[in-house]
């Protein structure tokens, strides 16, 4: 009888302590993200679940982006540099292109490599990319569709064309896109939304919290 009472009391305490601890942690953002398939920089198909057990930071962009993408990747590089080698092994930085037509796995690899060779670039078919964008409720639009003149916008990685005609017809390769950085836990749940304005120490704190989570 006493033994039973002891077990019940123990379960009661543990469950209450767990709830109290759970309330202090980052909440799962319901409906943001989920399982997807994409092509990594080596041209191999990967799924989100391929990274189970790692904390992820996912950003959307494209290599022709002249402004926010290089800035974002620079920010992610600094963020990554603040983590210890052990912590770096427990997490991955991901850059998902919104321009899969131009950003082939090879192209993406070269671009990402300028920032950090550990970073993962993801491309895929247009359908795969659109699905990932919709899962994370991100957004992107071709600037040409929005009637924004793009010919004078500086490009970080100038697009190469086989001939002048193709270059002239290329009016659709600049985009506006979401700037959100998605923090994903080891089980694939989105746990926080950040941006390049988040202080580095705040963001690393959240990454560490998820790395250390049981």
């Amino acid at each position, binding site marked *: 009888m*006493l033994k039973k009472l002891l077990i019940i009391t123990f379960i009661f305490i543990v469950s209450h302590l767990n709830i*109290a601890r759970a309330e202090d942690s980052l909440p799962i953002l*319901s*409906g943001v993200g989920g399982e997807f398939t994409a092509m990594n920089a080596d041209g191999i198909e990967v799924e989100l679940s391929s990274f189970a057990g790692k904390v992820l930071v996912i950003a959307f962009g494209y290599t022709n982006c002249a402004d926010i993408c290089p800035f974002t990747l620079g920010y992610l590089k600094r963020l990554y540099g603040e983590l210890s080698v052990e912590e770096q092994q427990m997490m991955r930085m991901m850059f998902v292109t919104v321009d899969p037509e131009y950003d082939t796995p090879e192209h993406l690899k070269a671009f990402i490599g300028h920032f950090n060779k550990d970073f993962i670039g993801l491309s895929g078919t247009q359908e795969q990319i659109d699905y990932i964008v919709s899962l994370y409720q991100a957004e992107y639009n071709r600037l040409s569709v929005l009637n924004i003149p793009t010919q004078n916008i500086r490009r970080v990685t100038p697009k190469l064309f086989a001939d002048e005609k193709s270059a002239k017809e290329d009016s659709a390769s600049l985009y506006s896109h979401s700037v959100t950085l998605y923090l994903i836990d080891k089980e694939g749940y989105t746990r926080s*939304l950040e941006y390049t304005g988040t202080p580095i120490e705040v963001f690393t704190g959240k990454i560490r919290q998820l790395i250390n989570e049981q």
Partner: protein
Amino acid sequence: MKIKSILIIILCFVGAAPISAAPTEVEQRVEYATSLNTMASTIMNWYGSLIEPDQKNSFADVDKQWDEYRSLYPRGISQIQITSTDLIKLEQAHSYQFTVESLINYGANGQLMTSKHREQFIFHVDLFSEAHIEAVIRDTVKESQAVELQGKGRFYYKIRQFSYAWLAYLDGVEGREFELSQGHEPALYTLKIGSKEIQGTLLSTLAERQQFLAKGGHVLRQLEVRSIDEKSNIVTIELIAEWKGLNHIAKPVLAKIQQEIKVKMSDDQLWQIRAIKEQHLLPDIAPWIGLLC
């Protein structure tokens, strides 16, 4: 003997630990959301039923004890606009003070008149989360310049009465009657959470939804009437609610829930839910959410 000693130590620890006595944040959230929703639904019934009756929108009878108080409202009320509300939890357990300020339009001698009201409703929410009005205090009544109040008739309050009662029902309050079928066809409930899509009868989808949103509370953030089928009296409502709580494995969850609900408002106080489509949107946790560059 040894077990007895351990048990005593543990019980002392439990007694000393405030965590065992104080409600957790999620328990407070559940109490807040269910109380708010049941009280708000009662308030909507109170004001909606003050407006001159029409053919389509009936309300539940308000307890007779309030007849005298309600007789002090002007006659011939056509519209009511709630201009502000304030909810305070009182010291007495499960008791709340709901202060409502409103503009009331009524006709007198063929003229449109408006009066300003400030009233305090004292509620007691029972163990089954039913909200009971314990007292109503009339703070102020002032005649005002006639103001045109568009679209604040019985239908407006009927929709809100339903929406708050529905959110309370989602949080486990059983007091309200919802008919979850159309003849022999059960109401269809489609739920999209990220890459998961669940489709089934209302009850089966709610049961599956439980694993994602196990213990917490819905708070209404936005409500719009998308369409009205005058012939069948079927209304399509879009509501957005915020949900905070725990999932089935006690992990904290935050959700911005969008529901499109097709509901038939019947005269006999029964809400016939025909279909629900639900998806979870990007929560508004920062001002830059949704920003494009």
